[in-house]
């Protein structure tokens, strides 16, 4: 098997960061622009070798601001575009994530989270960017964020991310963490024709048709068809609020109309986007909610608790955003409490609290070490006692 092949079909023992890179290759990533940052650096290192070998474009930019701006430009020129970073780099990308939202430019950013805030713990795990990826940029907007719990999922989620981005014309995040990024595990890569690929919606209008309104979303999904540079449509893409023609329209009514559509594009279609895994929830009296590397420890804790007769289950989030609020509401009718382990001081637990009046017991650590199963098991037992 030569390195020139995009899809390395077969069973591999892969570093999580490398699995992200292979996911990008398999998804047909045409353009990567990034900046080295621990613990994500291995992803661009691998892509710098793999992408040029297949004629795809790999560029190391001067910083993350340039990287994110380049992602939007590449995407609007027709490329499947991706970057990989960690917390501090993600913080620099925020303004242009807003631009990706505003211009409805599909793109993927992988965040291998590390101890935060600030320079924090560059080489060690954290999960402190979860709220940032949802709300970090200014204004109202919706994004999708996946949270892999293994290198296999890192591979799978990058492919999902490209498809979700192209389907809904949004930036999509793969919120991995250093544990997943730096662990080496079995990754099975399917044959190329079994890799799912969703294409962008294209216009019915021909180039030069004066009646074409590039930002008019006529379909129920509220996604307008995309046109790329050089196709002859000569459209204005504006970071300013704009009308259906793409012209700046800095007034209240068109602004509200546009922002509502951008938000509703996702909000009204979460049922097509949200994914989670249910483990032992059918008869559960307690529910643990977890994501990313912490979900692995949570699973072990739940297994141990079950052995002790505690009826606890696990809701493992695959998409953290949009958050499965309806599922939490539904579970609230069944369980007595939630336990939420996170390698941060309580971020997604706030979302859980929004959808339930039941107690949400956090098991928290600011990061730097894998969350062991024991504190989660202790919390389950404690809650079970008091419930």
């Amino acid at each position, binding site marked *: 098997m030569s390195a020139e092949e995009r899809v390395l079909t077969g069973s591999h023992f892969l570093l999580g960061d490398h699995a992200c890179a292979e996911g990008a290759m398999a998804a047909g990533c045409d353009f990567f622009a990034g900046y080295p940052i621990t613990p994500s650096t291995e992803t661009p290192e691998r892509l710098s070798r793999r992408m040029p070998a297949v004629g795809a474009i790999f560029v190391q930019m001067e910083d993350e601001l340039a990287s994110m701006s380049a992602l939007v*430009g*590449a995407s609007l020129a027709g490329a499947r575009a991706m970057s990989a970073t960690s917390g501090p780099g993600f913080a620099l990308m925020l303004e242009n994530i807003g631009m990706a939202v505003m211009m409805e430019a599909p793109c993927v950013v992988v965040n291998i989270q590390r101890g935060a805030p600030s320079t924090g713990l560059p080489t060690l795990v954290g999960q402190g960017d979860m709220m940032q990826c949802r709300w970090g940029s200014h204004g109202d907007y919706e994004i999708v964020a996946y949270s892999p719990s293994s290198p296999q999922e890192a591979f799978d989620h990058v492919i999902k991310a490209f498809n979700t981005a192209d389907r809904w014309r949004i930036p999509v995040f793969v919120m991995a963490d250093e544990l997943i990024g730096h662990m080496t595990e079995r990754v099975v890569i399917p044959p190329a024709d079994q890799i799912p690929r969703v294409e962008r919606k294209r216009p019915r209008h021909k180039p030069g048709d004066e009646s074409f309104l590039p930002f008019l979303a006529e379909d129920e999904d509220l996604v307008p068809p995309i046109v790329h540079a050089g*196709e002859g*449509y000569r459209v*204005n893409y504006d970071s300013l609020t704009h009308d259906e023609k793409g012209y700046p329209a800095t007034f209240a009514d068109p602004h509200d109309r546009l922002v509502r559509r951008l938000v509703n594009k996702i909000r009204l279609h979460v049922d097509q986007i949200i994914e989670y895994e249910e483990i032992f929830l059918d008869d559960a009296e307690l529910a643990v909610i977890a994501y990313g590397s912490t979900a692995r420890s949570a699973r072990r804790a739940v297994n141990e608790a079950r052995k002790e007769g505690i009826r606890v289950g696990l809701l493992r989030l695959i998409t953290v955003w949009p958050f499965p609020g309806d599922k939490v509401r539904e579970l609230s009718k069944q369980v007595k409490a939630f336990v939420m382990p996170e390698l941060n001081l309580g971020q997604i637990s706030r979302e859980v609290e929004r959808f339930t009046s039941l107690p949400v017991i956090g098991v928290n650590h600011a990061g730097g070490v894998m969350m062991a199963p024991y504190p989660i098991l202790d919390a389950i037992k404690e809650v079970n006692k008091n419930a």
Partner: protein
Amino acid sequence: MRETVVESHPIDAVFRTDRLPHIFCPGCGIGPATHAYGQAILESGIPKDQHACVSGIGCTARVPGYMDVDSYHTTHGRSIPFAMAIAVVKPEMEVTVFSGDGDLFGIGGNHFIHAARRNVDINVICINNFNYGMTGGQVGPTTPLGARATTAPYGNTEPPFNLPYLAAATGAVFVARWTALHVRQLKEAILRAMQKKGFTFIEVLSPCPVGFGSPNDIGDAIEEVWLYRERCVVDHNAYLPDLEIDLRRKDKPFVMGNFVDIEKAPFDPLAMMKNKGE
């Protein structure tokens, strides 16, 4: 004969006429510079469909919105990496960044020097009106020493960039400076830039009666343009370090010209792959 009243202008072919008149102040130099750019598009031999115009934020950055080409009004300071991405994904396109001095050299300075270093195949046209105009006339990286601005009411304490020198030093293959008055030479320079492969840079000195002229006792746009008329000299072979603009020294002219025109391999992310004979 007397004048004839009409409803359209020959240059309208390159504009989104449904958006005219543009928002620029009476006497703003962005208008003439845009006309020169539009004329260059029409004369470039490259169809409109293959041109892309990218800007950041500012008065000048409103220009792509008026051009009838693929246009991108991006975030403040980040037009150059955006343009670079289009240029590498769609190398057949003629990508031009049309933005202002504050956007390109204040917040955007880092991206400028790296794109010049890489020799990315884009054209950068910088309208230099010596201030941040859109936000009301604040001091910027090209405001002359001693000039007043809303955030420098006692006079600017910082020396400005010497843009042609900076561009040449960081690797641009074509460097020129003209003014919004020297529209013929400006159009020729833009045409030359479009023909060249690699990073080209054109600085256009522009009157800004509201943002710059007013706080600096320049009566109106006409007076500011006459300043250029009187103090500009053309010297294509000028010594680049001497090109800074100093308003206070009446003996120091504003030097215009096409200063650098060299050949260098443009940026190609796959350059090393070709050497392998693959």
